[in-house]
């Protein structure tokens, strides 16, 4: 087993464990902490895939931003102390059957797919390439994304405002 394979196995195990924690733990606040772990593990997967820029973006936006917003939302809608934070799940068996069926279907499709060509190492600097792509072929999408961000921010403020 090479070092890269070993690293992948360790990170994959951490990612799957944290994901199971997100959906199985009863304490909602703990679920958010598990989600933070899963997001960091995903960032390390990006690092294994030789994308250090996305590793940084993932850590900053997800592990930094999204988790903070989620903690705020829990504090606003639940009592952080006391029993209200626990939550129950329902249809556990049905959910497990559906999720397992989806996984088996996806895995079967992946296993039967054509083996990809051997990996090529990226030639040029990744960040420079990304920057050129964002102002070149993807410039229109990039600008639209900025409009979407502003619209969503305004919508979120409008929805969450106090009535007065």
């Amino acid at each position, binding site marked *: 087993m*090479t070092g*890269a394979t070993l690293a*992948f196995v360790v990170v994959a195990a951490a*990612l*799957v464990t944290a*994901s199971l924690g*997100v*959906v199985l733990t009863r304490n909602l606040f703990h*679920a958010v902490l598990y*989600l933070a772990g*899963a*997001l960091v593990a*995903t960032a390390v*997967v*990006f690092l*294994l*895939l030789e*994308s250090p820029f*996305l590793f940084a*973006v*993932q850590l900053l*936006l*997800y592990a930094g*931003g*999204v988790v903070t*917003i989620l903690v*705020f*939302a*829990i504090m*606003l*809608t*639940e009592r952080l102390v006391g029993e209200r934070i626990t*939550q129950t*799940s*329902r*249809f556990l068996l049905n*959910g*497990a059957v*559906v*999720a397992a069926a989806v*996984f088996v279907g*996806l895995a079967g499709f992946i*296993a039967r797919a054509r*083996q*990809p*060509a051997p*990996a090529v190492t*990226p030639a040029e600097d*990744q960040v420079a*390439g*990304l920057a050129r792509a*964002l102002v070149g072929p993807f410039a229109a*999408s990039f600008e639209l*994304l900025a409009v*979407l961000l502003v619209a*969503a921010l305004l919508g*979120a403020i409008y*929805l*969450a405002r106090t*009535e007065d």
Partner: protein
Amino acid sequence: MTGPGLQAYLILAALVFAIGLFGILTRRNAIGILLGIELMLNAVNINLVAFARFHADLAGLVFTLFTIAITVIEVGVGLAIVIAVFRVRKTVDADHLTLLRG
């Protein structure tokens, strides 16, 4: 040095996707459902980066940047809706939010 191939990453992403789906189907708290959606979007990002890496194509990384930004938007709007619903109904239990049920 040969690491794991493309299929190993795709299987890992499929597993995380299925776990997120399980969370969406079984959670009753609206915030818990949002956590499941986060996991599923995250799994898709792994797929995109893996394809970008094994095909040496930057488009996958650009798509990943876009999906990350859109996920952040989705969380912001989703949590704003959750907070607005909580103000009116005093609960975020999805089973009790039946206002639109026909």
